[in-house]
């Protein structure tokens, strides 16, 4: 399974990618929307984990751009904010169960990834 992680906190995504790798997931991480779009143009991913509040482009906009290019991909949103506004917008895109608030326990994230990719 291939997962793309997008968050502007490099240490967060790089460590999370390492932990997902240990669990058999081929994880690639990037820290901005330009690199995320380049990655999905070049490689196939099953799922993207997107920070909601990215610099210059929010995770919702990025999700729509990725989905245009890769309609088969699934998405999980990750946020530090947890505002009602973000929750409603992200829930409308991917369902409320795939909107996770930092910090996230790896078991919870793995369960969400498995649910989405096996559905």
């Amino acid at each position, binding site marked *: 399974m291939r997962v793309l992680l997008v968050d502007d906190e490099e*240490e967060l995504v790089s*460590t999370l990618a390492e932990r997902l790798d*240990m669990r058999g997931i081929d994880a690639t991480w990037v820290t901005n929307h330009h690199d995320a779009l380049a990655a999905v143009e070049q490689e196939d991913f099953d799922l993207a984990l997107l920070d909601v*509040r990215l610099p210059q482009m929010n995770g919702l906009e990025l999700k729509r751009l990725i989905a245009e290019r890769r309609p088969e991909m699934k998405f999980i949103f990750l946020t530090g*904010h947890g505002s009602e506004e973000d929750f409603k917008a992200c829930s409308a895109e991917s369902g409320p169960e795939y909107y996770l608030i930092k910090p996230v*326990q790896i078991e919870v994230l793995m369960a969400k990834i498995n649910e989405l990719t096996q559905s």
Partner: protein
Amino acid sequence: MKDQQVTADTQGLHFFGVMTASISHELKNALAIINENAGLLGDLALLAEKGRPLDPQKLTVQAERIRQQVRRADDIIRRLNRFAHSAHEGPASADIHEVLDFTLALAARLAAMKNVSLSVEAGTPVQLEVRPFQLENLLWLCLKQILATAPEGPSSVVFAASEAGEEAVISIRCDGVPLTGTVTSVEEEGHPLLAELGASLHLETDALLLKVPRRS
């Protein structure tokens, strides 16, 4: 005067909300990184139980990463504490450079989201009698308007302070951000604050000038 105070207070509440939301986001990120690094240590311990040798260098790196994030979170909380106190403090003597440094530290994450870097030019102290929270709020209103018109590419905003007679002058220079319209927008939104501080905003060739009486 009372209506003006109410409006300035309402504006202050909005400013306080925006900044504390941003600070809480920063704290969440620090906690998330601590969580992942601690989790990775746990993962390595589990692998060690299954016979994979532990790499002491790797453990040292992970432990140091956790310490760095604890320091980062501590800095954020100190900033939040100072900000919270500034909201209820009355007028006091302050060096504008300190107010600028603090305000830019508060706004740095919001600016970074727009790919804008912030800095303060070093200079001799410029003392003025002010409610720091109100000056922070007015500086944020200026910065907010600048960020709203910032182009997609990287840009920078440089603040500097000097004295001109009885006034303190804060200049705001922007590289790559158009300033046309900024004065009108700040005056419209910030008129209660400008009035409370007795401050005025001017557009010069390449900079915004914010003039504040040194004694209110």
